[in-house]
């Protein structure tokens, strides 16, 4: 009991717990909000669950959304690790999506792989730019990434897919804006019949594992975190801080770029005329709730993905589908809350954990 209390009040020390608690609490709050508005909250949650997990179809939708959110969340989390707040995942995602749509039209062997790589590269370049501006000119990355989002949106939507890259075919394609369809060989393979579940989920999970190994297990990841935690100290200790920031931002952009590619290669199969996903921005929420950690972000991505997938069904009981955003907002607020109440929590924890029961320091034998 004492141990449990100590753990509950230690979200900062254990981000996975923090994520889980804030997600649970936000669901409870959302439930209460629906009930207070006079709707049938039980029925709503049942529909939500059915829309997210009820059979292969809904599970596929949840999987797609979870994969994309996981990648944009990781994008933000990786930038966090080098100390930058990347608001630009949306722009990086757009370039990644466009690169995948363009390369995916070619007939080369292994076109799927090339499309993914092109998306990663495009996103990386768009992420590198604010990193480089930060290192070279001291431009604050929040400002530059926000502005770069709009540059990406208007360049791609206002010009490229309406002009140079617009589908120039005949028949059905003409009436629809956007690029020409990609080659079927570039489609992400679907894994289960009757579901849109595709190879995006295993790919995203594999990438998450890679990011986890890189950021927490490798020396390079340690150097990133050192730069993020104290740029001057890292620099003075011989770590090339500027280069590490650029690397982190490039990886951050690449992850968002691949997220865009999953949407194109998995479901859209072309760059559509209307493509305002919001996944890049939701990645910020995912990373925040996940405490900047890989598995915390994965958990948050799963819950937010399920909410996105299930929320459409909520209209059946008269609940607006923006309910998903409400829950998301609660979760972010609740994750911030423990920091607000940290002094109180620490005091409670101090009482819960008498000094004598402090855990022994684990010693690792060589």
């Amino acid at each position: 009991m004492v141990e449990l209390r100590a753990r509950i009040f230690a979200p900062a020390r254990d981000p996975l717990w923090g994520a889980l608690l804030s997600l649970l609490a936000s669901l409870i709050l959302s439930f209460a909000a629906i009930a207070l508005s006079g709707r049938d909250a039980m029925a709503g949650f049942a529909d939500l669950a059915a829309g997210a997990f009820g059979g292969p179809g809904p599970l596929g939708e949840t999987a797609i959304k979870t994969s994309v959110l996981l990648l944009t969340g990781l994008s933000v989390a990786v930038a966090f690790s080098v100390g930058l707040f990347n608001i630009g995942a949306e722009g990086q995602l757009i370039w990644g999506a466009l690169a995948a749509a363009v390369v995916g039209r070619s007939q080369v062997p292994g076109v799927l792989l090339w499309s993914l790589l092109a998306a990663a590269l495009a996103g990386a370049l768009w992420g590198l730019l604010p990193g480089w501006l930060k290192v070279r000119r001291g431009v604050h990355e929040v400002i530059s990434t926000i502005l770069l989002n709009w540059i990406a949106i208007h360049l791609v939507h206002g010009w490229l897919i309406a002009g140079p890259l617009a589908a120039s075919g005949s028949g059905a394609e003409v009436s629809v804006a956007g690029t020409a369809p990609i080659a079927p060989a570039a489609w992400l393979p679907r894994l289960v019949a009757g579901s849109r579940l595709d190879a995006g989920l295993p790919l995203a999970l594999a990438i998450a594992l890679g990011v986890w190994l890189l950021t927490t297990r490798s020396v390079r990841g340690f150097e990133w975190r050192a730069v993020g935690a104290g740029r001057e100290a890292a620099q003075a200790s011989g770590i090339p801080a500027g280069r590490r920031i650029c690397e982190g931002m490039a990886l951050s952009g690449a992850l968002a770029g691949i997220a865009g590619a999953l949407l194109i290669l998995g479901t859209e199969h072309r760059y559509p005329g209307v493509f305002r996903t919001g996944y890049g921005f939701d990645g910020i929420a995912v990373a925040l709730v996940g405490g900047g950690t890989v598995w915390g972000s994965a958990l948050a991505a799963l819950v937010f993905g399920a909410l996105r997938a299930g929320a459409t069904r909520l209209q059946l009981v008269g609940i607006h589908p923006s309910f998903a955003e409400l829950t998301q907002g609660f979760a972010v607020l609740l994750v911030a809350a423990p920091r607000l109440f940290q002094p109180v929590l620490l005091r409670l924890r101090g009482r819960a954990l008498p000094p004598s029961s402090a855990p022994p320091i684990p010693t690792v034998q060589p």
Partner: protein
Amino acid sequence: MNALELSGIVKRFGEVLAVDGISLSVARGEVLAVVGENGAGKSTLVSVASGLLAPDAGEVRAFGRSLPPGDPRAAIDAGIGAVYQHFMLVGPLTVWENAVLGREPRRFGFIDRRRARDEVAAAAQRFGLSVDIDARVDQLGVAAQQRVEIVKQLWRGARVLIVDEPTAVLSPPESAQLLATLRSLAAAGRSVLFISHKLREVLDVADRIAVLRHGHLLQATSRAETDARQLTSAIMGLSRVSGTPYETPAARSDSARHGGHGEFRIVSPKLEVREVVCRSDRGKLALRGVSFRIGGGEILGVAGVDGNGQAELAEVLTGLRPATGMVALDGDPSFHRSPAAARAAGVVHLPEDRRRRALCLGLSIEENLALGNQRAPPYARGASIDFGGRRNKALELIRAFDVRPPDPRARAGALSGGNQQKLVAARELRGGAPPRLVVAVHPTRGLDEQARQRVHEALRAAREAGAAALLVSLDLDELRALCDRILVLFDGRSTGEVPPDASDEQLGSLMLGQESAVG
């Protein structure tokens, strides 16, 4: 009735007693200078007087009225105006706009621009402060901005002006002008509390001079009763008024092995520095041709009043600041081209600002212990972190330096200042390959006696292992206890190099820029 009266002020920060029962008063029309080395408690005292800090005990009175503790507005209303080292000015606004900001004269609910401007201009003129009232503040130089701060305080009715290290940012002629301004303020019946560690200025401008050391008031004398020599001794604690027990040079066990004092052994110079010149962050010349050599197994102390180039010298040697002239370590003149290169060459650094320069406060103790050596065993195995090796090494270092709490996973930012410094010393001196050059800047500032001893032991151990070491300190006792020779810097030049048993008088005069006949 005094203009400003501080009685029995005590202020504590955590474990550190910054000000320990100081009583001081400033009369009307008087310039009181407060001197002391860094950390003596000057700035804390100023912050208490201006209401920025609430004292733990004691009282601040202005013109006989007691001020509520920790209330800057009440202090301003009572006529206390402070000019800090960091100016509180809004760049894009004009001089007069800055002066009236927050207290704008109003007319029909709008700012009465004409009245505001005229009043500020009148205040500036009355005290002979030459400043262009309509200039934008961000287009003014530092000295002019400082005058704006003073005008601002005067317009607000300050009758006691507190100026904290005002000349640190000024060139000599600008300083002279400022001192003249302060004198004329005093002549007009205003009071000035002048904080500085530049003795010449203090002796130029003050009516009375108070000396602080380790949070105590050592003496408060009239200008006539003291001189530079006496003040230097008091500031440095040379008369051992409040001296901490150090081993005396004579008691040093290793002095015999080193061939005694006075005989300079240069064991094949490890570090050779010739005619080094560099600039400070503000672009002023910080080192103007300094030369010295340090042999292996030798500690060279660097003494001097703070701000005479010591910090920049340490940065040059650790690759953090570019310089011209020759700096060679074991014959390699390019080892200091970057922090990474210096570290690879075996240079370790205990920087002055350890929280910013040496530690990633958000990372754990063990991660901080790996910093700088993170790519090599036992901290890494190939490209990945060796968690077991790192943990064991961390526990070993924590034990050796008695870092508390002894939990390798604790955040470095949660440690006390002394433990942070022990952490840095452990890493730099024992964390990796044996160092070839140790650069330590005020390595024991703010440390308690035990922690101080640990750091000293570690520095001695590095010397035993054959490293060359440069120790910058304001504490002459510390320099004497550790160093084989002491180099004195003044205004970016070396004024002499003396054995550690040099007399107080000799060191004092070198620190004041009088070249030594001995060095």
